[in-house]
């Protein structure tokens, strides 16, 4: 367990070092803090003075260390697009993205579990063939295209659902803006969350099915039959609980990767989340905002992996004693 913990911590540290290097490169190369601070209309001599004062003439390692120390204190610079600390801007957009991912995960879990289990225990039925067929088509349609198709059907053609924005939001105590507390907000959530789920859902169905089919072949399932247990118990307790282990590891990572696809989904739906702001920052070369996004994404990634490991440990009795294989 201890070795396992050290390995995970090492991985997290590696992620943050790589991210900090990328961020440092971004800031060093395109970041022009002089412009951010002083605007375009200062003389060359004044710039040079400011440069000295900010330590931009120091050797690179020294600058890097200063960058990391500042970052650790939460100081990632000022976003010139918003004129506010970049980290604040990103954190302000965090609830929108988090709620989007949350709803997409709900879709994925609610739909993939029954479909995957059914496809595993009735591998030859017509419904299974349909599920598997749809899932391979689903894997082949890019997320942004699903989003566009949904918008065209439900917004342009039928006019049932809104196609952009979050709708009415409410600020909860603690500064969390939620779109899930109003009917309008929920209506705005439908299409984006389905789009975001569309890539992960078929992958989950296929993953659950293939893992469960493998477990159903195992000796202990055969023994469960020999014990005369009712079918539901064999499927849902014996087979499914063992299916969960690989599904949690692979699936947990997949949910982490959804973050990347929020950039696409948020762009299509003009969803005011972190991904949308990130892309604007790329277009406008707002360095500090870019850096803040990358740092926050890195932290989320580390967090998701930790949660996945904890859940895995809760389900697998072996990990409590010996550590993961």
């Amino acid at each position, binding site marked *: 367990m201890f070795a396992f913990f050290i390995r995970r911590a*090492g*991985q997290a540290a*590696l*992620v943050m070092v*790589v991210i900090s290097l*990328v961020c440092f*490169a*971004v800031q060093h*190369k*395109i970041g022009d803090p002089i412009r951010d601070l002083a605007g375009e209309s200062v003389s060359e001599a004044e710039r040079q003075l400011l440069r000295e004062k900010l330590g931009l003439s120091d050797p690179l390692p020294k600058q890097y260390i200063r960058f990391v120390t500042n970052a650790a204190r939460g100081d990632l610079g000022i976003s010139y697009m918003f004129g506010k600390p970049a980290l604040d801007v990103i954190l302000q957009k965090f609830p929108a993205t988090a709620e989007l991912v949350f709803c997409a995960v709900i879709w994925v879990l609610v739909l993939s579990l029954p479909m995957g289990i059914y496809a595993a225990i009735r*591998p*030859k039925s017509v419904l299974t063939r349909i599920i598997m067929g749809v899932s*391979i*088509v689903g*894997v*082949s*349609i*890019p*997320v*942004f*295209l699903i989003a*566009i*198709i949904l*918008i*065209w059907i439900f917004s*342009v053609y039928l006019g049932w659902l809104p*196609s952009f924005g979050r709708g009415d939001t409410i600020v909860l105590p603690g500064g969390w803006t939620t779109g899930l507390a109003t009917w309008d907000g929920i209506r705005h959530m439908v299409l984006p969350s389905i789009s975001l789920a569309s890539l992960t859902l078929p992958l989950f169905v296929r993953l659950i099915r293939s893992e469960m*089919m*493998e477990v159903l*072949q195992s000796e202990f399932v055969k023994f469960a039959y020999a014990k005369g247990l009712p079918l539901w118990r064999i499927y849902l307790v014996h087979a499914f609980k063992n299916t969960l282990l690989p599904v949690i590891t692979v699936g947990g*990572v997949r949910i*982490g*990767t959804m*973050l*990347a*696809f929020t*950039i*696409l989904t948020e*762009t*299509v739906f003009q969803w005011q989340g972190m991904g949308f702001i990130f*892309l604007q920052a*790329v*277009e406008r*070369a707002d360095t500090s905002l*870019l850096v803040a996004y*990358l740092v926050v*994404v890195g932290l989320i*990634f580390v967090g998701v*992996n930790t949660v996945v490991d904890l859940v895995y440990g809760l389900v697998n009795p072996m990990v409590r004693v010996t550590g993961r294989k």
Partner: protein
Amino acid sequence: MLAKWTAFKNSWFLYRFLRDPVAVSCTVVLFVMVAAAFLAPVIAPHDVYDASNTDILDARTAPMWLEDGSSNFILGTDQQGRDLLSAMLYGMRTSIIIGLGATILQCVIGVVLGLTAGYAGGKTDAFLMRMADVQLSFSTLMVAIIISVLVDVLLGRHALALREQMAVPILVLVIGLAEWPQVARTVRASVLGEKKKEYVEAARVIGLPPLRIMFKHIMPNTLSPVLVIATVQVAGAIMSEAALSFLGLGMPVTRPSLGSLIKTGFEYIFSGAWWITAFPGITLVVLILVINLLGDWLRDFLNPKLYKKG
């Protein structure tokens, strides 16, 4: 050569292939699409790279079977007045070139790093595989986005023209660098299996240099799983290209790819010009779908263990 052809004609592979209608029809569709893409300069009704050929007044003409369509533009035109069918053919060519290029690049990186990790073991292995884990859990798309931002940074903000010119090689590089971990992991797994076998031991005993053992003796035995993933990875790379172009990080609008066509079309979807998005979108999905189906078929074929389970 002839003997090889006869051997192929009588092979189990061909026998099984011809008896699977899905596999055969996918191959036919894929072949037609690839041929059409690479013959684009010959068969496309208009040259989309030639600006003198397009007229902004033709912009957003509907497909020819609709009321306000024109027989000059079979599938209509885009927002710049370019013939959509021609733009799609050229765009498909770009997408396929990027897909293949990125797959070759990631296979080269993946095979070299996978062989090294598997053969060297120890700390090298641990480090390379940690890197692969981190990249994979970040998702290849996120890594690709970050790398393209980095490339933009390195080229500088003022090299926009250069950026546009170099769009194809840059995308190949970005996607190749983002997607190597899959290949490396597979290669490493088969190297670990091969390493235990006697012929490797024998080669080591007679004192062959490690590089020779790795590339001459072990590598050929790891290539068939690489072939399977490579197929699916082509589809993945084409998807990544489309996603990056859609985000504005890939092909510029002036040089069509399927992704950039969908991107420009999306802006006009509310004004009723659905065809600019719809046709490139359908083409993209069909292209990816047939490659995925073929990849599935190939995996089932090379891995008959899975078949018995069904």
